[in-house]
């Protein structure tokens, strides 16, 4: 381990402990109480939770979370038994366009759960895991905003983002590429992964997890690279 990365790892753990000391009792503190995976862990042995949010817009200030899907990945295997999908109950009207994309109607939404229990469930599932996302700004921003509102402080979220994994790989190629090639479905198409017709948070979380298996394989065919190579926080 090079000193710089050691610092970084100590930094992550140090920040977790500092936040843990400040956090109020409750789901966020429980989440922070579990150590994060060691950044030296090989990627194929890192405990991961693939997460996807569907939201009504891009900014947490003006939009809110519609649904959350997540699935666990251990030892390079996506475990369907852990697949979980939650719809957030909200008073906001549904934008008609988003309803079409996400296939969530008002009646679904009414049957959903309060944001508080959705976030609690998600933090519980994330404990001790790295959050896997594709273009994770939405998930990070909305989860941070929700935590601030519910618990008065932002969480610390170690993440792997398949978009950045793909971007780093493609940046090294001599030929340029169109940024639209970094979209989840385009990357999946490029790798010959199956095309899922449905677009819901759980399906996209699984789609992201599958893409991760391919991108991680491309990074190290003989030996899986360590987590720190792709870790963001």
């Amino acid at each position: 381990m090079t000193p710089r990365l050691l610092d970084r790892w100590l930094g992550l753990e140090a920040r977790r402990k500092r936040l843990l000391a400040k956090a109020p009792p409750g789901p966020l503190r429980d989440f922070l109480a579990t150590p994060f995976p060691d950044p030296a862990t090989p990627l194929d042995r890192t405990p991961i939770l693939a997460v996807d949010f569907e939201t009504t817009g891009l900014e947490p200030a003006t939009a809110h979370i519609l649904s959350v899907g997540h699935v666990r990945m251990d030892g390079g295997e996506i475990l369907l038994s852990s697949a979980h999908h939650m719809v957030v109950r909200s008073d906001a009207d549904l934008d008609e366009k988003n309803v079409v994309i996400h296939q969530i109607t008002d009646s679904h939404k009414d049957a959903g759960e309060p944001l508080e229990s959705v976030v609690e469930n998600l933090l519980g599932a994330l404990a001790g895991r790295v959050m896997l996302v594709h273009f994770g700004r939405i998930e990070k921003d909305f989860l941070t905003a929700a935590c601030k509102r519910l618990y008065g402080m932002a969480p610390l979220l170690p993440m792997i983002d398949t978009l950045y994994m793909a971007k780093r790989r493609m940046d090294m190629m001599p030929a340029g590429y169109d940024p639209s090639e970094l979209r989840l479905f385009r990357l999946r198409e490029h790798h010959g992964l199956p095309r899922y017709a449905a677009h819901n948070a759980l399906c996209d979380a699984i789609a992201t997890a599958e893409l991760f298996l391919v991108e991680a394989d491309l990074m190290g065919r003989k030996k899986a690279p360590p987590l720190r190579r792709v870790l963001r926080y």
Partner: protein
Amino acid sequence: MEIELKEIRDFIAAIPPFDRLEPGSIDRLLDKITIRYFRAGSALPPDNADEERLYIIRKGALSLRSRKGTLLGKLGESDVCTSFCLADGGDKFRVSVDEDTLAYTVDCDSLNAAVGNDSSVLAFIRNTASQRLNQAMASRQEAASASPRLTTMLVGEVMQKPAVTVDAGSSIHEAAIRMRDASVSSLIVVDNDAPRGIVTDKDITRRCVATGKSPANPVDTIMTTEMVTTSSDANAFDALMTMTRKHIHHLPVIDDNRVEGVVSISDLMRLEGRNVAYLSSAIHRAADIDTLKELSTTIPRLQVQLVNQSATPDHVGKVVTSITSALTRRLLQLAEEKFGPPPVPYAWVAAGSHARREQTSHSDQDNGMIISDALEKADEPWFEQVADFVCDGLNECGYVYCPGDVMAKNPRWRQTQSVWQGYFNSWINTPEPKALMYSSIFFDLRAIHGEATLLEQIRENMLAQTPESTLFLAHLTHNALKLRPPLGFFRDFVLIHDGKHNDTLDLKHNGIAPVVDLARIYALSEGIPAVNTIERLQAAAGTPTLSESGAANLLDALEFIGILRLEHQARQIQRDEAPDNFMSPKEISRLEREHLKDAFKVIQTMQATLESRYRM
């Protein structure tokens, strides 16, 4: 189960055997599934997997091989790799990843728990696994599968070189010493390297020791001069067949009147496995119909054995046909012993698949007699008795009576050469579609016994006429196009729904017969005398009638469909069922189905080409 997993659930629920699961079982199964990714070139199971697992391929391709590397099958999207779900199966297979593969996997214990009350699913999985296992075991036992096939080898590659020879002037005593020193049982007698005859240890026993002849006499006084020989560029399988047919154990290999070597039946049998040679020589020795009947029951097993040795359909067809010919010849010999020698020369001819040398073990009999024009009215009863004896005998041996009555038993097909020639002239010159439909079988004839020239003269006259007879060829084409390959697979595959063979595909009538018909038309258009379909296609390739690439594609299609048919029949025979041509698409993997679809497309294209040539 989360409703959002519906897409994965639907994918799995459509694949046999999961398609017969209750919805509740599918949901329980889904809960046990993990998704894994294997890159091309890696091996299954991965090193870190210690439990038995089932792999459902979502995307990608796998190859299944025996420990020795024999390819047992290929799996593609929607196929289920069950090999690791058999208690002791895991170490007998190698599975390799041909293309990057995304798989839904489940460990076998969880699978059992999820489908616990549905025994048909478990039976399916165990069966497919054990079938693969049987195949693997069969190919392991048969070292032959690793050695080159006899049909593709030349005598020159398998002969012993140099041949042990003795000079014509040497004494019998010297010949015996030479045999002892070289540990051989026969010597080729030469005169300045030119072959004069052959002498065996039996000749020394019978013609010298037993008769009190002095061993000081020259060896050429006891040698056999009527030698059956072969050449180094002859086909090794044909050499084996020649020896079994003539009851000889050694064939001198002669090139340009020089002795190059010798090939023995035991050399070839070691390569071939014992059964074929044993069976034909037993048939030649059989004293009565009961013995022949007994021997013919081994033919289906012989076919299975050949399939397990990865013999090509062409090879299997030739072996099975050679047994049929041996049976027919033996029956004719027995008939001639019983009713006396033929009053006038005749030829016993086989028609259809027997003539083409493309039989499988359950063929009907199709035959006829071409009798010399010297036939007198008083001779007719002899031919009738012999025909009845042979046709009835074949029927007892499992070659059931021809449903179309194309048999020497039928007086219409027991006629003199002139009458036969008249039949052909009218088929060719005044063709009627319906009459032609039933007579196309007679354009595939082969003499099995008797005077082959009686048939060859007819064939020569026939082939002199057919290339010019456009109307005849047009009618033949029109009839041939009535059998079309099915259009696509599964959704658009034409399956048979007749009660007995529901949801099956008729490999013979939809796959093989159209190629046989095409090859016949090419051969008749080009005046090619061959009757074997592969030989016809090879001979017609590059003529105006058939392009080289068209011929190559048809040969591939024929071989692929032929392999599927043989494997289907082997499975039936191993289950003690009567083999047939009706295969359920579920018997084969999706990847094989894709190949089959391609094979059908080739046939369809060639049919369309011919159709445009002889548009009516």
